[in-house]
């Protein structure tokens, strides 16, 4: 074994991970805990950016505050780490100022749906041409595991030691009701499906939303007796893949099942197209 490991060690020094060209490698290893799924979701996002063939010079990544919010800092793209909850308004501004830019929002559930909830529903309503990737780990991981808008009923967190008395948001259903035009949900276990779905979301014109379920072993898992591998096992056993499922039936429940898939796709004029058509038809004629 020693000779093999030596040979491996020599090989490793030269070895370069296929995603290293999209990573700020001087910042790797990242801050995410052992067993945290954000790294997988982030790798899938980078792979999808590569696969989609987008011009990397015209692609920007925006994220808010939280564990997933660190994503923007690790991507070797134009990226911006905004204030808490304001990733979508910042991205909207970026897109309006430079409509040629492909804007990816990579953030967490607390950032996008609690403090940033209003921004999300209005960007979806306007069909702003953004790709929103939400890593859902069911709690506020970075601040110590407090209850969030996505924590399941009766789950234990720092602030709900006897169980969460409230009901969580169903994110894809919320996105559907708000008017998003591409909606999907995957877990980090479903790597290839997730990359395909993210690629489709990146190439979709209009507001695309992908929820990625990820374990949070240190804060959520520890209080709910779930080791990281047990969470993956749960995803493996309980997930039901139903593409084009009725948005009312996409449950996220350890007992009823975790429904995954590309749920909805629609083509509708995006915010900028609609604005130009309505408010400045002359400009459209000039530019065409």
């Amino acid at each position, binding site marked *: *074994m020693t000779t*093999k*490991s030596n040979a*491996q*060690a020599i*090989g*490793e020094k030269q*070895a370069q*991970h*296929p*995603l*290293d060209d999209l*990573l700020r490698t001087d910042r*790797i*290893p*990242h801050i*995410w*805990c*052992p*067993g*945290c*799924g*954000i*790294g*997988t979701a*982030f*790798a*899938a996002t980078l*792979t999808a950016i590569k696969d989609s063939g987008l011009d990397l010079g015209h692609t920007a990544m925006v994220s808010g505050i939280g564990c997933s919010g660190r994503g923007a800092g690790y991507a070797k793209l134009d990226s911006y780490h905004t204030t808490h909850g304001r990733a979508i308004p910042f991205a909207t501004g970026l897109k309006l100022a430079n409509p040629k830019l492909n804007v990816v929002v990579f953030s967490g559930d607390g950032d996008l749906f609690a403090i940033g909830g209003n921004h999300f529903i209005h960007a979806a309503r306007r069909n702003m041409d953004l790709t929103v990737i939400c890593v859902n780990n069911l709690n506020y991981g970075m601040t110590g595991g407090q209850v969030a808008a996505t924590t399941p009923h009766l789950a234990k967190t720092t602030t709900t030691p006897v169980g969460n008395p409230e009901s969580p948001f169903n994110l894809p259903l919320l996105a559907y009701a708000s008017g998003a035009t591409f909606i999907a949900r995957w877990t*980090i*276990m479903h*790597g*290839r499906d997730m*990359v395909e779905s993210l690629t489709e979301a990146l190439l979709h014109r209009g507001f695309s939303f992908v929820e990625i379920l990820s374990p949070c072993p240190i804060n959520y898992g520890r209080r709910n007796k779930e080791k*990281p*591998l047990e969470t*993956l096992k749960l995803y493996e056993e309980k997930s039901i893949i139903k593409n084009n499922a009725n948005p009312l039936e996409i449950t996220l429940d350890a007992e009823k099942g975790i429904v995954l898939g590309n749920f909805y796709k629609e083509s509708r004029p995006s915010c900028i197209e609609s604005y130009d058509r309505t408010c400045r038809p002359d400009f459209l004629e000039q530019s065409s």
Partner: protein
Amino acid sequence: MNFWRVPLDAQDVSVARGIVHIIEDRCKGCGYCIAYCPKEVLAFSDRFNKKGYHPPYARRPEECVNCHYCEILCPEFAIFTELDPSCPQAKELESDKQPGQSN
């Protein structure tokens, strides 16, 4: 892999061979790659890396079929596989590539 029934064309199908690369100092020892490798190639090593975790090592490197699942699942960008250049698939790929390149 364990089949409940051996596929009829199992003899005719040639399986790709891969090489596992592990960037040990990035590993945080979550064990996802070890638990989910379909060919059970990987195992925890006894060594420690810079951060004090036990990185995986290729216990049965000849079993790797280059499925890339460890690479997809790893949250740390610490493991990846590539096609073994000496296996038949790599040669096929090469011969497929050449006419494409001349175009």
